[in-house]
């Protein structure tokens, strides 16, 4: 019998890119089934690593939320020793709104100021006997946009505000704002530092776990090469497997995190907020969950790619 051609080649099973992808996906799923224990260990390790990272993110996101709530208290007030006419209020509000960083302007009349004052003295209203609205100043309360609430931005803002000739007296709780800004910077610095270390640790753990998984199957890689498989034919199922391991690991970590959240954390706001206005800890926003899943997929893919390079000589 002549052997000039490599066997009688029947119809190919995987024509086109779709067919090839389907074959590689099936192969990857079969590989996972055939190496179940190794895959379970890998997914478990990835889950644990990402659970720590997502727990940190959960706390960080909520801490950011708390600080944002605190920053709502940052206000600038311009005081006047007389009531302003509606025309003056409109004109001044327009000029103030034109300053960058202004979120809103509210006029507080002397009458309104007295009402607020007495509100704060609930139960001791008798202290205000004989007090008339004219001893209190009227004011324009200015709320600032979130990115203009730090110490430097407010100083710049106030200097611009003071350029409006009608405004003479401005107050904004300078000391409180400075301390708050320092606290915010500290939280962000620690967050970036811890987060950075955690991300590095996760990358290291996941990459090495995948490397061990692939190392345990180096005979298979060698054999595939010996029977004439091309580099991509060998790599593709392993890369898909890496992506599946990464995504499954992250999905499990999110499930565990949501379980922990439902069981313990959703009403644990008192632990970090000290603010009864908050309804509870938020779960991770959807974009964070998507980023974690994408990170898991990318790590699985890149970890496999880097490891395969070491074991495939083709």
């Amino acid at each position, binding site marked *: 019998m002549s052997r000039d051609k*490599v*066997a009688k080649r029947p119809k190919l*099973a995987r024509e086109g890119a779709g067919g090839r992808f389907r074959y590689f996906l099936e192969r990857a799923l079969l590989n996972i089934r055939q190496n179940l224990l190794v895959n379970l260990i890998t997914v478990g390790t990835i889950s644990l690593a990402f659970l720590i990272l997502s727990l940190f993110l959960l706390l960080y996101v909520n801490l950011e939320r708390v600080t944002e709530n605190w920053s709502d208290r940052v206000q600038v007030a311009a005081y006047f020793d007389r009531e302003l006419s509606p025309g003056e209020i409109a004109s001044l509000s327009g000029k103030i709104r034109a300053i960058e960083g202004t979120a809103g302007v509210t006029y507080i009349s002397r009458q309104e100021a007295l009402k607020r004052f007495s509100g704060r003295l609930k139960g001791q209203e008798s202290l205000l006997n004989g007090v008339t609205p004219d001893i209190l100043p009227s004011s324009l309360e200015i709320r600032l946009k979130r990115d203009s609430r730090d110490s430097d931005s407010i100083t710049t803002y106030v200097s611009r505000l003071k350029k409006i000739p009608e405004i003479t007296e401005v107050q904004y709780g300078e000391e409180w704002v400075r301390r708050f800004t320092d606290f915010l910077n500290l939280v962000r610095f620690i967050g970036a530092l811890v987060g950075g270390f955690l991300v590095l640790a996760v990358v290291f753990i996941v990459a090495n776990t995948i490397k061990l998984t692939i190392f345990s199957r180096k005979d298979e890689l060698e054999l595939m090469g010996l029977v004439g498989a091309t580099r991509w034919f060998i790599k593709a199922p392993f890369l898909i497997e890496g992506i599946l391991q990464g995504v499954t690991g992250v999905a499990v970590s999110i499930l565990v995190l949501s379980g922990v959240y439902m069981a313990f954390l959703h009403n644990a706001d008192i632990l970090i907020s000290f603010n009864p206005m908050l309804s509870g800890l938020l779960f991770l926003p959807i974009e964070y969950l998507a980023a974690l899943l994408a990170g898991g997929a990318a790590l699985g893919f890149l970890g496999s790619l880097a490891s395969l390079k070491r074991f495939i000589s083709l």
Partner: protein
Amino acid sequence: MIQLHNVYMSYQRDAAALSSITMKVSKGEFVFLTGVSGAGKSTLMKLLYGALKPTRGQVVIDGINVTKLPPSQIPYLRRKVGVVFQDFKLLPNRTVLENVALTLEVLGWSKKDINKRVYHLLKQVGLEHKINTTPLRLSGGEQQRVAMARALVNEPKIILADEPTGNLDEASKDQVLAILKEANIKGSTVVVATHDRRLIDSCHKRIIVLDKGHIVEDADVSG
């Protein structure tokens, strides 16, 4: 089919594993490559399936100069060459069917055709009843026959067997040899590296003897 011209191979400086090897194996030939351990048999076999490139000289397989072959083209060379190893190289977590099917999966055969072909091959080597067994449940001889089925399943032009009977009992050796002879009769060029004298004597085929990396004898005893 196989040509080596002045091949020199060294893993380290000053220590040649192969030296001045020039040989030619024609299409359809059956050749024994023999010599003591360390003579260079396995190195020569590795050159033939592209696992190594010679330090000097030319290796031509079925018209392809392996020496100049880029790594991306080696898979296509290996599809023409079926290789059998002493340690079988079977995947322990896959069934006999899946192990043999690997060669055809690489070629892109459909599952249906693969199953048909693998069953046919396993029947030839007498293992069709073990098709769904994993290799660890097979004897050494059976494992080697599975490995041979994997090497033969795509009807390669060349079959290279590196110490194929090294770990087997006499009965299994005979079975392995019979399979190789049958493949040769069907048209494959067969090169068997072995130091098993009984195997060589039972065949009356061409013998190439290696010693310290040199060919010291090339005798055709088939006549």
